[in-house]
């Protein structure tokens, strides 16, 4: 019962040499399981599968199994299981009814018959399918089609407003961040020098630098302007000291800066 084992090849290898078991030749090659064997036996009754005699079929199957065993053929387990089940079915069909039984033996026989019909139908359908005019075997496609090609072309979309808005964005983004110093009131260095030197000219003693600033009213009340005046006056003092026109003294760190004219 062992058949050539070629599990990976579901394509027919073509001329398959018959197994060399001449002594055991019992027309047993090629069954695909017990159902397959049953179907073949049923076909031999030469009647419509719907009208086969199940009892006859069971007998044939059991006889077949007996023969195979007599010939010491190694039968796959499922053949034996089927034989046992069929033997049970036969006895159930023949013996007086047990009303309790469900499914009934007749129902089981019907199911078996249905399964055989179902398999028979598919086997026949497969044959008819394979026999059709098949593409590449009986009918052919065009041998050298030119082929269709679809080139994709981008259709770019953009509106006039998109363009000018983009330009505006570029302009705004790339515009340098310019910090304009707003024009504001300052005391220039020149005016500080002339103011400090003229006031030094009349001073007799040391004077605090802050005393050289203009009086803090009107425009000079502006703190920014006062700071500018202080800074300019400080630079003016340094300048006068550098040119030998004034002395600068500071007693403590951050203490008041005092100036005094150097009399030539």
């Amino acid at each position, binding site marked *: 019962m062992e058949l050539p084992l070629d599990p*990976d090849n579901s394509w*027919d290898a073509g001329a398959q040499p018959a197994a060399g078991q001449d002594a055991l030749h019992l027309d047993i090659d090629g069954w*695909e*399981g017990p159902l397959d064997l049953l179907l073949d036996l049923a076909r031999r009754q030469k009647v419509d599968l719907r009208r086969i005699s199940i009892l006859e079929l069971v007998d044939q199957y059991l006889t077949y199994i007996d023969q195979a065993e007599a010939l010491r053929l190694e039968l796959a387990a499922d053949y034996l299981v089927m034989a046992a*089940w069929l033997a049970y079915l036969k006895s159930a069909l023949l013996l007086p009814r047990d009303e309790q039984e469900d499914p009934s033996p007749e129902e089981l026989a019907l199911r078996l018959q249905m399964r055989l019909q179902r398999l028979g139908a598919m086997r026949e359908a*497969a044959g*008819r*399918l394979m026999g*059709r005019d098949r593409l590449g*075997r009986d009918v052919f496609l065009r041998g050298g089609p030119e082929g269709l090609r679809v080139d994709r072309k981008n259709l770019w979309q953009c509106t006039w407003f998109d363009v000018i808005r983009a330009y505006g964005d570029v302009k705004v983004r790339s515009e340098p961040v310019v910090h304009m110093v707003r024009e504001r009131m300052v005391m220039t260095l020149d005016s500080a020098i002339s103011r400090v030197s003229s006031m030094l000219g009349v001073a007799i003693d040391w004077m605090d630098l802050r005393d050289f600033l203009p009086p803090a009213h009107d425009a000079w009340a502006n703190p920014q302007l006062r700071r500018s005046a202080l800074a300019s006056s400080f630079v003016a003092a340094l300048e006068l000291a550098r040119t030998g026109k004034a002395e600068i003294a500071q007693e403590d760190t951050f203490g008041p800066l005092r100036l005094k004219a150097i009399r030539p």
Partner: protein
Amino acid sequence: MNEPIDDLVRAVEATLFASEAPMSVEQLSTHLGQADVRSALLQLQTHYAGRGIHLVQRGGRWHFQTAPDLAHLLRREREEPRRLSRAATEVLAIVAYHEPVSRAQIEAIRGVQTARGTLDVLMEAGWVRVAGRREVPGRPVIYATTPEFLSHFGLGSLRELPGIDELRAAGLLDPVDDDMIEAALGPSHAGGQSADEAELDRSATGPGQHDDRVASSNESA
């Protein structure tokens, strides 16, 4: 000699001739600037009916092919396509007539376990595809045929499968529900494993392992 031919008919004719693959009405229409190609297809089909080339529709896709009666002229010099094993042809028929089907349903009909390799061969041939999973416990994979299956076997649709109406009328294509499978498998599988166990085993030992009986034998039997 010939009456003038409609431009659209000519365009459909040229497009289908040039195409490397069958084309659906939608594909044709898209290629030809959204034209309605249906009537052109029917005109061409009629025109070519008696010729050496036919225009056919397979699974909604159209292609030209040689006339079947000229097979003897053309088959020559061409290598015979490899033949499928009987097991594979049976499985193919079951998938086609019952689709979508699970492996367990295929096995229930055939009464034997089906080697994984058998379905692989059919999928490799491009005739069978995985069509999802059935939403039942275990979520088994289900299989169905492809448009290439229809093209290859010259079927406009599955409704043209040989004898399908009779088989359906006889109840031979009724869905095999799981209980039925269990009951039906009872006799032949009593000695052995459940389908799931077999599946696990198979994935552990490699494809096709179990199917000594399937990969054998010839179609002719």
